[in-house]
């Protein structure tokens, strides 16, 4: 598969030619169907990790008949190594709000809520002011929709959309069974669109710049650009918006420190790409998707420690309700430790990889399902480091 050259883009943070409330006005001049079909045509996929086509999500919610519908902005940003939603909400909150308003118009919702990661509460004073002003502007342009903020309950799992609803409804953040999906029965059992912060900004940008201009960026499978949170052994740690479809080699060329051994694409729940696979690995839905987290490791890093950290994160942050995830994560930690100490044969690693297969197909939510990604990519590619 051919990859794209590394290309910097500035859709998200650049504000020239984009007054958020004007973008909402522009959407209001379109029919609701047109708004939804523009987003569908743009090929935009969710930027929160799961990559569900945003336009389809909006369409499902629009087609539901209900007295109340909600638009929720997922700003729980808990994936290790991502910090781009914070920056977006800090720098261009009005763009996020306009995305929410456009969605509200499209699906017929009057109430929007931002679920803000608890650790980001320092943003609240400023955000609240901006929200008030934005709500005012919305009523001036005649859109019956208002946004409020709900402070998150401090667990990674509350970023999972249905756990997030549970948390908002005052219960323990445990993922629900799906179906029903949020577009049918979400927050308070009502049709709900939940999108990532960044996704919402792109929806506004698509309305602003037009479908064609957006589609011209990226690849068939991965339209547009993406905000990356770059961290680890890099001289350029921080936030960078890049065209989707580049390969890891080019990424490392730009961001690495010259000694890059591996890149963890997509945070703890993502995949670890070893040096030998840099060239052939595309960053995007045709290769390895990411919610934005890019962690770069150089040769001084122990991949055993990296894996162990991830596993401890999962064992800690799993909600604990379902068997494969609650117990699987603990088994993996104990298993790799015992192999490392020579108390178990190295073949036990293969048994553990099989265990992650079970976790992948039998866990209730994305957390347990995605542990296999980092586990098998690290154990397979750095097996030696696991044993000796």
């Amino acid at each position, binding site marked *: 598969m051919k990859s794209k050259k590394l290309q910097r883009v500035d859709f998200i943070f650049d504000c020239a030619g984009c007054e958020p409330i004007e973008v909402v006005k522009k959407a209001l001049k379109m029919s609701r169907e047109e708004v939804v079909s523009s987003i569908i045509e743009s090929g935009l996929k969710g930027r929160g990790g799961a990559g569900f086509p945003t336009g389809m999500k909006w369409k499902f919610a629009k087609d539901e008949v209900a007295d109340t519908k909600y638009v929720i902005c997922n700003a729980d940003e808990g994936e290790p190594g991502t910090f781009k939603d914070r920056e977006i909400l800090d720098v261009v909150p009005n763009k996020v709000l306009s995305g929410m308003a456009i969605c509200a118009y499209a699906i017929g919702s009057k109430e929007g809520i931002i679920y803000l990661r608890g650790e980001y509460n320092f943003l609240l004073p400023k955000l609240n002011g901006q929200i008030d002003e934005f709500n005012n502007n919305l009523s001036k342009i005649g859109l019956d929709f208002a946004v409020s903020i709900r402070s998150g309950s401090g667990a990674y799992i509350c970023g999972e959309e249905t756990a997030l609803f549970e948390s908002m409804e005052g219960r323990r953040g445990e993922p629900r069974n799906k179906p029903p999906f949020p577009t049918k029965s979400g927050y308070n059992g009502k049709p709900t669109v939940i999108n990532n912060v960044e996704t919402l900004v792109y929806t506004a940008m698509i309305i602003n710049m037009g479908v064609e201009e957006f589609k011209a960026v990226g690849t068939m499978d991965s339209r547009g650009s993406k905000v990356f949170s770059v961290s680890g052994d890099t001289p350029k740690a921080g936030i960078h918006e890049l065209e989707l479809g580049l390969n890891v080699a080019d990424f490392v060329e730009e961001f690495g420190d010259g000694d890059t051994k591996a890149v963890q694409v997509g945070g703890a729940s993502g995949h670890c790409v070893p040096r030998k696979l840099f060239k052939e690995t595309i960053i995007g839905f045709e290769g390895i998707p990411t919610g934005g987290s890019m962690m770069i490791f150089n040769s001084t890093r122990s991949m055993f420690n990296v894996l162990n950290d991830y596993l401890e994160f999962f064992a800690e*942050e*799993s909600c604990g*309700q379902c*068997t*494969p995830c609650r117990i699987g994560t603990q*088994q993996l930690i104990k*298993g790799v430790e015992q192999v490392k100490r020579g108390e178990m044969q190295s073949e036990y690693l293969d048994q553990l990889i099989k*265990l992650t297969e079970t976790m992948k197909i*039998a*866990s209730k939510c994305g957390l347990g399902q995605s542990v296999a990604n980092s586990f098998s990519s690290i154990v397979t590619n750095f097996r030696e480091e696991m044993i000796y």
Partner: protein
Amino acid sequence: MSKIKLTIDGRKVQIEQGKTILDAAKKINVKIPTLCYHEDLCVAGNCRVCVVEVAGSRALQASCAIPAQEGMEIRTNTPKVRNARKDIIAMLVSEHNTQCTTCYRSTNCELQTLSAEYNIDNNRYLSILKPNIEVDRSSWSIEKDDSKCVRCQRCVRTCSELQHVNALTVSHKGKDMKISTFHDLPLKDVVCTNCGQCVNRCPTGALTERRYFDEVWEAIGDPTKHVVMNTAPSVRVALGEMLGYPVGTRVTGKMVTAMRRLGVDSVLDTDFSADLTILEEGTELLVRLKKALVDKDDTVKLPLLTSCSPGWVKFCEHLYPDHLGHLSTCKSPQQMFGALTKTYYADKKGIDPKDIVSVAIMPCAAKKFEANRGEMKDSGFQDIDAGLTTRELGHMIRQTGLNFLELEESTYDSIMGESTGAGVIFGATGGVMEAALRTAYEIVTGREVPFADLNITAVRGMEGIREASILIEDAVPEWSFLEGVEMKVAVAHGLINAREIMDQIAAGESPYHFIEVMACPGGCIGGGGQPIPTNEEIRKARVAAIYEEDMNMTLRKSHENPEIQTIYKDFLKEPLSHVSHNLLHTTYRKRQHY
């Protein structure tokens, strides 16, 4: 309702919209193993044991939680499914205290059954059982052993959905996630009503009733002790389930024989004190009505609430402490029985009450706590020395090696062994009300209740709250003030329904005169001490057996019980007498609400 067509393992099945894959599989007798699923509870989908393959989906799906959809192709028995299930069960085992040989639930444990079915080899995974888990034995009624917990949350769902008590909740997350109480306090210090419904739904030995049979065996073996056992009405229609009989079999006669064979000195019937309760509580009702209607005393608390279900009583003490005045002051039949055993019975038999060990066999976990309430010593001794569950009796019978199926039948000893159909139906929700009406109506009008065969069907059934009314006409002179009064009664079972009743009372909007409340769904036949499993179907079968037993009795009204007539003549004098007051009535107190 529209039907959905799907295939399961290549076989076609049709099922109503909204039903799950598991429902559809049951319909064609395809057994899918489950663990967190329980018929009485909302779906959790957390154990993942019931996963199946759905064509078109890479991940497996939890069949208990996923609605059947048109055209679905389900596979329940592929290598992928079997491997995943085996892995999941092995994981549960790795987290579990696998000392099955010393576990009370051994041979009746869902995890044990699953691991046997799936042949879990021991060494697949390392044990991750947390070290030093302490068993909570603080409660008189319930033991909680987290080392045997599979985190299915059935107990939590029971405590919130069915009972609305929320004594048990989930705390912590990830590897530390566990079933806990408010601030992790011991069970004795939280809002727990001891109803034992969680115990009845626990798939393993994590929640069990606190056992007292060893003490009882000791007493039986002690020649200086006179051991008296009394059996609650609902035990006789459920015990058989543990001993080889189909659900819904009445085993009264065999049970009595078995208990005698255990070495018990006297086998008596709690139905006797159920009948007694009717006279005391029925009179209490009529007295309250008189005070309200004739004396216009506005301090009288109406509706009167029954008090024979100790889980319900404790529920009120925790959650509605300002309304305790509505509760009848009558002790439960168990405690009346205890108080009389060590006074009236001892006297008649010429036995020193200090040598009597009085044991109650109950469908109930709450009655263990009740027996140990400080105030239950009106006989001058602890009125009831031990409260055992139906399950504990079943275990004792097994321990003796008796072939229960082959036992001859026998009848209760005397005195306090005589009963009526009215006493028997105490075992089912609505039974106390029906028994009370059979007697009270007759006292007031001199006539039998105007229902065919005395069966007051309006108060029977499984609706959470049922109501009925009965018009008093041609009252006898003594009760003429009730002439023309339409007695309004209600029956509630399951504490979630009790809450509705109490909220109505708290709001001053209760339209009733008399309300029967049982803590457990279905009443005592569905009690927390009954054989496991218990579910809707089983409760219905036990209820049917209770009414069958009633129909088979010659005496079906409490006041016609000859032993009741004798005890009033010889000992109590009349309902609510001074002696009654001392021995058969009690008081309540406020408890913490967390």
